[in-house]
């Protein structure tokens, strides 16, 4: 899957626009990590987020 059109900022913006607040987003990451750790990883990679930041997000 190549991804040039999407990045972290756009993704966050998207979530904000549909009314998800910071707390919900954090909850969302936690759910993602608990249920599908590998999927979480590849999703974050898809957003072109750097390795260290991915680690940070996954251990939130």
């Amino acid at each position, binding site marked *: *899957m*190549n991804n040039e059109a999407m990045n972290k900022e756009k993704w966050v913006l*998207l979530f904000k626009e*549909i*009314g998800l607040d910071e707390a919900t*987003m954090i909850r969302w990451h936690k759910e993602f990590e608990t*249920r599908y750790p590998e999927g979480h990883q*590849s999703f974050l990679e898809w957003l072109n987020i750097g390795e260290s930041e991915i680690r940070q997000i996954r251990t939130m």
Partner: protein
Amino acid sequence: MQMFTIGQLARRYSLSRSTLIYYDSIGVLKPSGRSESNYRLYSEDDLKKMDRIQLYRSTGLSLDSIELLLKTQSSDLSSTLEGRLFAINNEIEKLRDQQTVILKILENEILEKKTRVITKDVWVSILRAAGLDESGMKNWHVEFEKNSPDAHQDFLESIGIEKNEIAAIREWSRPAI
């Protein structure tokens, strides 16, 4: 006639003494003479034989084949070497097969990594767990389509949704004109 000791021979051919003793024991290269104190002594002819042994060794022939070759006419050389060539080709083929298998495994691993798919069901369940309801998700698609249509398509493909369904989702995500 000049004779050579086992030590001289070993140095000359960069072999160990034990190798030469082994050659003697299996009959590949027996020294023509012995000294008074029963040390092995090699003649000029032995050296010529050793030259041939070295040459054959460098082609990877087994000591058995070499021994046979030394005993028979030199016209057998080409057929023996052809046999060796055949064996080398077989080896190469085997190695190439192994290479292909390894490459396939590596490719699959990379592919698997790339397609550790988050399926549609996974997405929906996570979004739901984060508190997004049906209308929230609809809203999300609408925003996604509005802000980044290409990424929307890419994203829907990545979670394994069929072409028709993607088209349908994107259709209702666009504002009616």
